[in-house]
């Protein structure tokens, strides 16, 4: 220690940085948040208040607020519970057992996360719709006249879609914590005579609590601000706050009401985060996290084998079958003889993929699939880099500062209305150097705002789980702070870093709303290309949209596979 101090004395600038590092460390992510989140949001609220004063306040506010608010909370609670019901056992199986096809299953369960809602609506329709695979099979099997399953435009479908989208959050976040649990504790409890249920309740669950809480919070906030799922799958009978904000802000141009609704949405997020922070305060005893892979093994005995097989089957049925229906539809020709009104003769075709490479109408906005994929990947990589670096700075800052208020701050972007933030971007970023028109960086910046809460929530519990004694031991043994970080912090956090990277990457890859708003038409991403096809009638457009969606899934799947492999 004396040696280090002496060296620092000779380098006053280095000493200065070392001494004040703690100060500017947390300034950077705060500045980022301030410039790209609070500033545009403030501009919208400012304008909304101005309009409210100049144009008066005519609507019956309470009625317009109460109904969507209640429904939003209700469906988000239900969705989160259901997501946990599926996600926790899945996380357990994937964290504790190795089995053939595990890596592929893990990648496949992540894919729903990236699919644009309109594509999911198409997939669910192909599977569950009145003329979907399941209804057709049931009608044939039982000789029914009408489709027995009527799920389109019901609350059930909203919940199903939320489970479909968000289970991967639970699997990734809780699963990564589960695979690092010290199994000797559970073994000790068993040896001391505790039943396996008792071990689960009194050892495993308390230890997993931080990660379960974190995953629940993220899932809840995602469901809470749900927009596309409600509009497209729930239909117009259901309205969440976000849907109401969209309608008021963009269709009715009623900024005061839209501003009020987004303020309420933000307030709820803040409240929830504070409650979460209180719950998270009661940290379990710090334990030495184990390295990844230590506790995983193949299932033994028929019970474990059944469990693993059953879980895999459930995941395949719920999460993978809509994806498969989509991919299948993209190579199926359904309309060959439609013009002649004969029976439909389905056949396999690669026409839709071939057509992706042809600019049929010589449009200036045509984009070849490879280039759309390249744009998507570039944005996703930039988002991953940006959100990981900001996230790292933030979690280290929160470790040393009084952290509760900052935690809430970094969760806020998840509860902010995307529509409101989009309006804010227009209001404030319209002159150089930060100009929506010429600043392609705004796209990864907007994506990072959404990804940052995930990164923070994923990294923080793991960082806090590293006992100080481990670092002190390393330091006493002569390791420099840099080496301590490299050989203590980083190996323990590696899995969480990977999870954050995958989540930010996929968030960016699938994002449509902000991208369509901020990206220049010359840099279309895959989701934007999908929308361009779906906005015109015609069998070819429909087929190409599905082909492009399959390309999106493939690009995402391969990228996740590479990231998964890199970390091992």
């Amino acid at each position, binding site marked *: 220690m004396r040696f280090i101090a002496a060296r620092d004395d000779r380098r006053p600038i280095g000493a200065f940085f070392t001494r004040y590092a703690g100060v500017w460390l947390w300034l950077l992510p705060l500045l980022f948040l301030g410039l790209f989140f609070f500033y545009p949001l403030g501009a919208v609220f400012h304008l909304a208040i101005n309009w409210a004063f100049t144009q008066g306040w005519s609507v019956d506010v309470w009625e317009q607020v109460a109904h969507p608010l209640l429904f939003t909370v209700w469906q988000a609670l239900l969705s989160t519970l259901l997501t946990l019901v599926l996600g926790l056992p899945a996380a357990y199986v994937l964290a504790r057992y190795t089995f053939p096809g595990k890596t592929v299953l893990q990648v496949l369960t992540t894919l729903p996360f990236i699919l644009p809602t309109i594509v999911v609506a198409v997939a669910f329709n192909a599977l569950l719709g009145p*003329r979907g695979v399941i209804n057709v099979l049931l009608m044939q099997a039982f000789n029914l006249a009408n489709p027995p399953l009527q799920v389109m435009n019901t609350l059930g479908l909203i919940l199903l879609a939320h489970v479909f989208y968000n289970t991967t959050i639970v699997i990734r976040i809780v699963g990564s914590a589960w695979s690092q649990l010290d199994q000797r504790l559970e073994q000790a409890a068993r040896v001391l005579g505790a039943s396996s249920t008792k071990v689960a309740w009194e050892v495993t669950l308390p230890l997993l609590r931080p990660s379960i809480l974190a995953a629940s919070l993220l899932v809840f906030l995602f469901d809470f601000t749900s927009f596309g799922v409600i509009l497209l799958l729930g239909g*117009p009978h259901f309205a969440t706050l976000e849907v109401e904000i969209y309608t008021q802000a963009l269709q*009715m141009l009623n900024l005061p009401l839209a501003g009020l609704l987004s303020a309420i949405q933000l307030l709820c997020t803040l409240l929830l985060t504070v409650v979460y922070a209180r719950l998270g305060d009661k940290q379990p005893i710090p334990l030495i996290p184990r390295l990844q892979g230590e506790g995983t093994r193949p299932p033994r005995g028929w019970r474990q084998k059944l469990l693993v097989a059953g879980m895999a089957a459930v995941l395949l049925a719920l999460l993978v079958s809509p994806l498969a229906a989509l991919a299948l539809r993209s190579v199926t020709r*359904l309309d060959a003889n439609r*013009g002649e009104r004969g029976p439909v003769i389905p056949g396999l075709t690669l026409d839709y993929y071939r057509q992706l490479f042809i600019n049929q109408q*010589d*449009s*200036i906005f045509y984009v070849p699939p490879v280039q759309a994929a390249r744009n998507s990947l570039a944005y996703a990589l930039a988002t991953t880099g940006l959100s990981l670096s900001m996230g790292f700075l933030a979690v280290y800052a929160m470790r040393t500062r009084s952290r509760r208020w900052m935690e809430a701050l970094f969760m806020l972007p998840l509860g902010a209305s995307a529509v409101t933030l989009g309006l804010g971007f227009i209001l404030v970023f319209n002159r150089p150097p930060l100009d929506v028109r010429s600043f392609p960086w705004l796209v990864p910046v907007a994506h990072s705002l959404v990804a940052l809460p995930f990164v923070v929530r994923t990294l923080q519990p793991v960082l806090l789980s590293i006992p100080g004694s481990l670092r002190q031991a390393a330091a006493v043994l002569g390791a420099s702070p840099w080496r301590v970080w490299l050989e203590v912090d980083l190996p323990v956090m590696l899995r969480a870093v990977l999870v954050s990277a995958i989540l930010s990457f996929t968030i960016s890859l699938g994002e449509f709303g902000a991208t369509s*708003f901020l990206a220049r038409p010359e840099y279309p991403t895959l989701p934007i290309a999908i929308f361009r096809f*779906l906005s015109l009638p015609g069998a070819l457009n429909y087929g190409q949209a599905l082909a492009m969606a399959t390309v999106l899934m493939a690009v995402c799947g391969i990228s996740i596979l590479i990231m998964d492999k890199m970390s091992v």
Partner: protein
Amino acid sequence: MRISRLITIFLAAALLIGACAAPAAPSVAPTQTALPTPSGPVTLTVMTHDSFAASKEVIAAFEQQNNAKLSFLKSGDAGAALNRAILSKDSPLADVFYGVDNTFLSRALDSDIYEPYASPLLSSIPAEFKLDPQNRALPVDFGDVCINYDKAFFAQKNLPIPQTLEDLAKPEYHSMLVTENPATSSTGLVFLLATIAHFGQNGYLDYWKTLRDNGLVVVDGWEAAYYTNFSGSSGKGAQPLVVSYNSSPAAEVVYATTPIAEPPIGSILGKDTCFRQIEFVGILKGTQHLALAEKFVDFMLGVKFQEDMPLQMFVYPTNTQAKLPDVFTKFAQLPAQPAILDPAVIAKNRDAWIKAWSEVVLK
């Protein structure tokens, strides 16, 4: 706390990687230049909605003739794009705005975002399209929101195709129609306007009550209605009738997987079953390139662009000198008596109509 320094390095590296992986633009894409040099081309920014499309060749011709670069700024659907233009009117993001239609026209004119321009080409455009006497918004194209039907369905069931709005409320067409929510979709809004034009402000809600009781399906937007609910599209939905456009049959032929002789769908063209939508272009106040913006407006109203439009956006040209492509004359038909409402009346009542409609149909 040497960690911080490491993180700085990590951050710098991440930024560097991000910068290297900057999105790739197609070589033909116009690039934004902040300050045009005297000899270089001037960039004209056109703000428009997501559905805007044009041929490369046509755009390139304009750019060459005028030593200009065209940059398009797409901003969501027609309503969202207009609101964006209104919200940024103090420091305009673009020089020209294309895509406001007659249902939004009054909002655009009231917000005072346009510079008037009496284009010489207006002489080739029929008076019925010129809704703004001050020429701040100039009509570029039109189309009709109509009900499309699935030909195969009605042939198989031996059911006559409904001809009027009243027919749709009859029990034989129970749960056959899907429409869009007027609060979230312009297509849905336009169809609501057709019923108001036909039944009057006092009668339209009763009509919607009977439609609701007759199993009407409402979805949020055109994409869902057409591709997941409509049985005539590739989505193979459950409803054989959808609120869409009179040009949809032509689009089904152009975008068929294998060439087809007849479109699988048709449009119902009875009295008031269609509502005419007219789209306008206007020069945004505060433009630095007024002369060029005027040239661009002339270009949009000129024959070359007008003849390119139908197959790009599936709309009809307003310029009477522009010839229609064959698929349009063969497979798309114009209704003899489309419903029409005064834009000022629409602007005044729009929100109240949508609210009343929601109360009746959705609650």
